């Protein structure tokens, strides 16, 4: 099974601060081999005898061939697990499972793609950009965050993208505002064929609305609380409309994290839509 995930103990090669984020490069050949853009890994946090039972999901930012294959992770400190990860040092080992999830689907033919990233969500876009460029696609970046040091990857985007537009809510970098404020202009200027987006749910909702308005497809990578990452716990579900028009609660970890944006019922995330398959009191198909 080429795509099937593995568990492995990888040695940390380097740790860095990148503005508001931490970056770790970990030797993980089995994962790097199988990686495709949009994949994530789960990391065990806290060490032996820890009180933290669940793994933390982190997007794979990059893979490199060094040492048989490395993965780079970029993350913000949120709670106890990411705080622990932020203190990991070079030569420590990390317990990883991956690659996990449904990666970004790539267009068959060359086309123009706008890649939209919010906060650390940008991290997953560069490997995607590489893959798209390899297929002859044009790529344009729109990266945003609340404030300058939370915009991830601006330099790299400038090097890779045909254009790169930055936004911050406080105006400390690029345009003051949100990615959705500038996105219509970027799509129009580039005559984009498709949008890819990764970032907070609210941003994905907005980006999807813009893409829908332009009538172009949009692929979004969502985030939902995950206890297992491998599809067995059913905690990470999102309401998604199927081909048959029926809304189902789909697992972000195996059926996602990448979904077609217009299929995700963003307004109903965190609820069970009354018309979802098996909704309480709803129709039971």
């Amino acid at each position, binding site marked *: *099974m080429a795509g*099937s*995930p593995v*568990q492995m103990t990888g040695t940390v090669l380097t740790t860095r601060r990148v503005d508001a984020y931490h970056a770790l490069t970990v030797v993980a050949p089995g994962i790097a081999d199988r990686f495709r853009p949009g994949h994530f890994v789960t990391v*065990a946090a806290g060490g032996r005898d820890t*009180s*933290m*039972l*669940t*793994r933390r999901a982190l997007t794979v930012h990059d893979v490199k061939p060094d040492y048989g294959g490395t993965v780079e992770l970029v993350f913000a400190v949120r709670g106890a697990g990411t705080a622990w990860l932020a203190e990991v040092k070079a030569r420590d080992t990390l317990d990883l*499972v991956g690659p996990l999830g449904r990666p970004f689907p790539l267009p068959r033919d060359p086309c123009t793609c706008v890649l939209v990233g919010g906060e650390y969500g940008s991290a997953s876009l560069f490997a995607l950009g590489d893959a798209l460029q390899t297929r002859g696609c044009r790529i344009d970046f729109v990266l945003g965050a609340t404030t300058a040091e939370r915009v991830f990857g601006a330099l790299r985007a400038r090097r890779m993208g045909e254009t790169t537009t930055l936004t911050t809510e406080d105006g400390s970098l690029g345009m003051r505002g949100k990615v959705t404020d500038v996105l219509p202009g970027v799509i129009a200027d580039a005559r984009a064929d498709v949008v890819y987006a990764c970032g907070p749910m609210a941003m994905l909702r907005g980006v999807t609305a813009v893409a829908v308005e332009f009538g172009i497809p949009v692929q979004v990578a969502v985030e*939902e*609380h*995950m*206890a*297992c*990452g*491998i*599809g*067995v*716990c*059913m*905690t*990470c*579900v*999102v309401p998604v409309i199927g081909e048959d028009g029926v809304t*189902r*609660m789909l697992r972000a970890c*195996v059926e996602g994290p990448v979904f077609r944006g217009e299929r995700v019922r963003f307004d109903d*995330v*965190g*609820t*069970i839509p009354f018309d*979802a*398959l*098996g*909704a*309480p009191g*709803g129709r*039971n*198909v």
Partner: protein
Amino acid sequence: MELPNPVLTAAGCGGTGRELAQFFDVARLGAFVTRSITMAPRAGRPTPRMAETPSGLLNAVGLQGPGVEAFLERELPWLAERGARTIVSVGGGTVAEFTALSRRLADAPGITAVEVNLSCPNVEDRGRMFARDGSAAAEVVASVRAAIRYDVPVIAKLSPDVADIVAVARSCVDGGADALAMINTPAGMSIDVDAMRPTLAAGAGGLSGPAVRPLAVRCVWQAHAALPGVPIIGMGGVTTGRDALELILAGACAVAVGTATFHDPYACPRILRELEELLTERGFDRLADAVGLAHRPAGTGPRGRTDLEESSL
């Protein structure tokens, strides 16, 4: 019920089996226990459905699943094909629903046993779970027992959220349960002190993981002491072979692994290997010799070393 080994998945913690099959051959499990299957499809609870607590996990999935028809069509045959022994966990809101569900399962091939999830809310008793009351639990068990083929064992799965687990266990056995499974998750809750709201969308959830192992060991111990002839599947916080052995010494003849799989997808086969090593180290030829061994009266231990330590105290 003869199983090739004593390590099972815990209900609701092994997906459909296909997800785990990416990591190991599901036929290597003592048995695969399904999530609780319901009559109709169920969308479950809103998210967030999980919260981490110290050495524990709260979940409120709400029995999301495709319903019994889809299960019989798409999930059970796949498990059979893979050579897995399948214990089907069943859930329902009324005795009638359990009956209907069991009838639907009655002539399905490839069912090793049926496990009755008595932690389901009883819609006819203000949503209180069947497991909290011996007579309600027994009624469900009897209805399932009546519907299921006589040679397919029925296992009653109990909740620790009762004043007297032995009373409920006894009622279930009297109602026709061939075996007991314990423990299901006790009700717990966590509050996000930043949002100042319950962390789970559903408010409360079930607590699992090593945090609850002492409750599981105690429940298994009590049930085995009171009903020594009744086989018990022990579960609750098993993450290593030592944990599995702890439940076995307390009286379980098999153990199920739930939350540990979320952290380590290979948990079941690893725990089996560790358990086998521990049993060999201790000179057990058969698992059965270890079952409930911690109940033996003080001073009657088979181990020289143990006795020495005790007499030195």
